[in-house]
């Protein structure tokens, strides 16, 4: 298989990229890691007249933390997030998601920004960004704007990105208090699309038995037309301690928010129940990582958080 013919440019600067998109954005596609776009080109599901390869543009890679914001630049690869061990625990939702994306070879090329702009309903980063309340920075010759992830994801393979815009980075708020999170994914085999995946991110305030949930983010992957934010479940957690009963109620509300379809990977009922179980496990792990140590975690059945080495740290 090979793609339909296209023009190809690999600009050296951001200004060149934005000028090209301003001129030919309607008929162009931006190429980052290419791990979703190139298969689409080969299958002729997409046939843009122009590919703008941003692989040579400086300043688009890396993860930074300052002024209460975690910034993930658009061309940061999945493997780079997997290797960013300082995200462990407090930003476990990112660190656990990365190694579950496709396979190691794809993660060596594929990028966070590319995946978000592709907006596959089964793409992992959408749910993660919904859980963390991230903002997308979109730049064009007209200027720069920030779009919240809930407004960015609009439908299957559809985002708020205008044809002349480039996603340059993703900004994740770093709240006060203790944070913890995880990403749980069910897939038939390595490299398959998610049957169901769940992103969980919690903020706890106050210590010991007085700790209360000050912030809660729950993103659901592959159970709707795009990644979904389980807002009722999130709201049910606020101001309460992460006890087994509170977590179980949130898990039921999250399952109710899912709208899965029956397909080769499972029935809608099955997927909805996996959402419930994964949100329950995920919230228990997230609370523990945020410093909650009040009795046994609810119904983990010996389950530990994902990660090579298995300690889930």
């Amino acid at each position, binding site marked *: 298989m*090979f793609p339909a013919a296209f023009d190809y440019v*690999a600009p050296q600067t951001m200004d060149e990229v934005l000028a090209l998109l301003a001129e030919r954005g309607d008929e162009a596609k931006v190429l980052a890691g290419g791990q979703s776009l190139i298969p689409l080109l080969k299958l002729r599901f997409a046939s843009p007249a122009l590919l703008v390869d941003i692989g040579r543009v400086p300043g688009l890679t890396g993860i930074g933390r300052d002024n209460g914001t975690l910034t993930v630049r658009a061309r940061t690869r999945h493997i780079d997030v997997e290797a960013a061990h300082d995200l462990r625990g407090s930003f476990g939702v990112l660190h656990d998601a990365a190694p579950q994306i496709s396979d190691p*070879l794809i993660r060596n090329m594929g990028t966070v920004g590319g995946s978000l702009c592709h907006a596959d309903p089964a793409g992992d980063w959408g749910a993660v960004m919904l859980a963390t309340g991230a903002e997308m920075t979109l730049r064009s010759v007209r200027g720069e704007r920030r779009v919240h992830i809930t407004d960015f994801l609009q439908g299957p393979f559809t985002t708020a990105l205008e044809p002349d815009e480039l996603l340059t980075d993703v900004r994740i708020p770093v709240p006060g208090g203790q944070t913890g999170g995880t990403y749980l994914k069910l897939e038939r085999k390595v490299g398959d699309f998610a049957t169901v995946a769940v992103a969980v991110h919690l903020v706890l305030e106050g210590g010991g038995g007085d700790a209360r949930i000050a912030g809660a983010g729950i993103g659901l992957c592959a159970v709707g037309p795009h990644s979904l934010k389980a807002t009722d479940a999130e709201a049910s957690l606020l101001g309460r301690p992460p006890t087994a009963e509170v977590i179980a109620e949130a898990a039921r509300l999250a399952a109710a928010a899912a709208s899965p379809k029956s397909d080769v990977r499972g029935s809608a009922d099955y997927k909805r129940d996996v959402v419930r179980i994964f949100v329950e496990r995920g919230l228990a792990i997230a609370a523990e990582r945020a410093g909650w140590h009040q009795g046994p975690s609810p119904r983990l059945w010996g389950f530990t958080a994902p990660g090579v080495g298995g300690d889930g740290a």
Partner: protein
Amino acid sequence: MRVTVTVNGASQSAQAEPRTLLVDFIRTRLGLTGTHVGCDTSNCGACTVLLDGVPVKSCTLLAAQVEGRSITTVEGLAAGGSLHPVQAAFHADHGLQCGFCTPGMMLVGAALIQRNPDPSEADVRWAISGNICRCTGYMNIVKAIRDAAGQMAAAEVGATPAESPTAEVA
């Protein structure tokens, strides 16, 4: 357009359409057919090459994307007429049956050992999780990669292994 890449240490240049996939560039323009086309849909890893030392799927890259960069194919593993320790270990451990996935498996193994000189079984299984062996010979593939790491570590400290697979087949 003209694409220039360093392949197995030597600079190579050839004409290619922008839509030319790296795997096709390597096989048809450069004549290096050790890089296989398997699934052609980013799943199987038969087309694995190392891009600046890191394994990637060459069916899911454009040749144009790797302009100016360095590629290692399976043909680049053996140096000076002797097999790479990973190749020797695949031979000694029967790490292949039909051999179709073998170039990718060996390149992933070599790249892993480069980064992690003493990989556990879990590390090896993680590394090859994007490469499919449809003969399902994973047991011996994992064994071969770990044995190669052991051989390379032994060679590194100057010890002479009792039984060197490199010596057997070289």
